[in-house]
């Protein structure tokens, strides 16, 4: 196999995967008798064609940044955390408990406490699979899947039997106090005038961007980050260098769970302002696609999350205005995961073949 230049591996392979995913989606749209060009236009118009659209796109992107970073941190330690969905839902539980326990006077007080709740609950939900992997060798992929289902059942029980206010039928908690409401992008200085008061995108977006930077700092500028990456690259070499597998698996998974849990600040505290069933709405799984597409780098995760935000908001618009069901976005998401994650080698071969056929051959001895 040709060794690809870094830029091709980082930029070209994901882009090619995206193009292929979109092409196949276009074929699917054609097959069900709709117009792919029209669909594309509706999607872009709905997602990025107006401030209203951007308000939703950025809202989705915020959630995906957190879950994408969660998958990324675990990936670097060689752990595949499929449990982001459950961790985000349990994180929502932490947010709800914090927000409902005190009559919060102002969001600046509620936010740090809620973040702590979200991160702790998310991390706790990742802790058991992590411990079982580190100490007993139970496969983390299977245990995190099981924990997604256990989380869903637990929340059904808690929302129906414990948190549901008397006299209501909805399996959901009471509404959070007004003092726990986060400012939306409309309330921010400068950019505020662009957005209407009804946009769901809120200041969690800024936290998400901050989280990207912190994760980059953690992975590439700290000792722990180095150990995580070393362990992920080669367990044997890391152990030989005195790195404790138990410590790395536990810490990377706890950070991963905390990041997934923090997503709940965006959707539970920032948008619905109460905890409902299935609050994460699949964002935990989209984190997998975002991390793969973003090549497990915070900058890539940010861009991929934005892309998936467009896809999500645009997909909703497609479902609303065309005959194509909203599930189209699940198909695109699946294809992106397939091409960037599973058929990665095939994509590389394709790019390598392109280089060999069309590229200039590096002249021997030339500077």
């Amino acid at each position, binding site marked *: 196999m040709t060794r690809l230049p870094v830029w091709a591996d980082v930029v070209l392979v994901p882009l090619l995967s995206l193009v292929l995913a979109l092409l196949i989606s276009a074929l699917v749209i054609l097959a069900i008798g709709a117009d792919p060009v029209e669909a594309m236009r509706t999607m872009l118009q709905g997602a990025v064609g107006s401030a209203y659209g951007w308000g939703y796109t950025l809202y989705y992107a915020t959630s995906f940044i957190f879950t994408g970073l969660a998958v990324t941190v675990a990936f670097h330690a060689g752990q595949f955390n499929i449990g982001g969905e459950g961790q985000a839902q349990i994180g929502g539980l932490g947010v709800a408990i914090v927000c409902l326990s005190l009559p919060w006077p102002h969001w600046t007080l509620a936010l740090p406490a809620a973040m702590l709740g979200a991160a702790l609950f998310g991390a706790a939900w990742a802790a058991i699979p992590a411990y079982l992997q580190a100490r*007993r060798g139970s496969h983390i992929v299977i245990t995190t899947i099981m924990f997604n289902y256990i989380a869903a059942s637990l929340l059904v029980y808690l929302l129906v039997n414990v948190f549901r206010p008397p006299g209501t039928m909805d399996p959901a908690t009471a509404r959070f106090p007004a003092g726990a409401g986060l400012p939306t992008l409309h309330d921010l200085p400068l950019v505020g005038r662009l957005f209407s008061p009804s946009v769901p995108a809120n200041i969690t977006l800024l936290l998400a961007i901050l989280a990207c930077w912190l994760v980059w700092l953690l992975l590439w500028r700290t000792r722990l980050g180095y150990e995580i990456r070393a362990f992920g690259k080669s367990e044997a070499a890391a152990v030989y260098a005195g790195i404790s597998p138990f410590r790395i698996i536990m810490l990377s998974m706890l950070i991963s769970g905390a990041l997934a849990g923090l997503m709940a600040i965006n959707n539970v505290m920032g948008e619905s302002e109460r905890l409902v069933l299935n609050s994460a709405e699949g964002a935990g799984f989209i984190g997998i696609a975002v991390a793969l597409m973003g090549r497990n780098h915070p900058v890539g995760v940010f861009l991929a999350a934005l892309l998936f935000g467009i896809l999500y908001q645009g997909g909703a618009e497609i479902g609303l205005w065309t005959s194509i069901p909203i599930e189209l976005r699940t198909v695109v998401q699946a294809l992106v995961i397939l091409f960037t994650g599973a058929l990665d080698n095939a994509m590389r071969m394709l790019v390598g073949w392109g280089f060999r056929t069309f590229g200039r051959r590096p002249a021997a001895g030339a500077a």
Partner: protein
Amino acid sequence: MDYATLLQILDSTLRLATPLLLACLAGLFSERAGIFDIGLEGKMLMAAMASGAVAFLTGSAWVGLMAGIGASMVLAVIHGLASITFRGNQLISGVALNFLASGITVLVAEDLFGQGGRTPPLEGAARFQALTLPLSGTLSEVPLLGPLYAEVVSGHTALVYVALLTVPLTWWVLFRTRFGLRLRAVGENPESVDTAGISVTRLRYTAVLITGVLCGIAGAYMATALQAGFGREMTAGRGYIALAALIFAKWRPWHALYACLLFGFLQALALRPDVIEAAAGFKVPVPFLDALPYVLTVIVLAGFVGKAIPPRAGGQPYVKER
């Protein structure tokens, strides 16, 4: 709980255990050959949609079954390409295919029938009908065992018996044939199989295709026997419960049967909260029963009930030495 209620619950246990069992044995073939498959769910869903749609259009449950198997095998081939030919990450491929199935089934069903991603209800020959086993009428007079035979063993669709027969068949193929020996070897130590001059690729593709067939039957059973038609997300995590059962059974066919019956029993109980309340003396929350298979699997995985050791070469693409 009286005897009649017990029989009712055992009867629905068998019905609910069937799709788990088929999917579990499907996973068994794949994982024994060293290919992890968390895409059982997606293959079942795809098969459920295809069989429901085709059974409605043709009016034949059997043609529907064939379509379901076909649809499931398409996903199996993609999984094979990704994990065998292109040596990709098998887990990621499974995740992707689950999402693909989840989206595309609704797109296609909506396009065909315009009923919100469902197929119209199936009637008559478009569904598998219950078979009455011979002598069940005569024997039902026998105390205890008679009603057990008539109510629980008899009166299921053909696919239930197919699933039950697949258990000894799987055992025989895996442990009594040359193909089975090689299949198990390729999941433990592919190098040795390769050295013996047998194609690792071919064996693994065969295993993945068998997985496709069995998941296809499981999905078709969901849409054309257990229920009358396809509905969106109708497999509802059964592929993952099957995966849990496979680990619970430690990748052994007979134990897979027991695990699936146990998980089927839990599902049957979850449908009858009144019975549990009477038996246990207090109200057991239904979500608890829903979560129990997963909790049990985690406990098994943790190694508290004997260690669950997967096939050694599982999840690793085979690279021939050069």
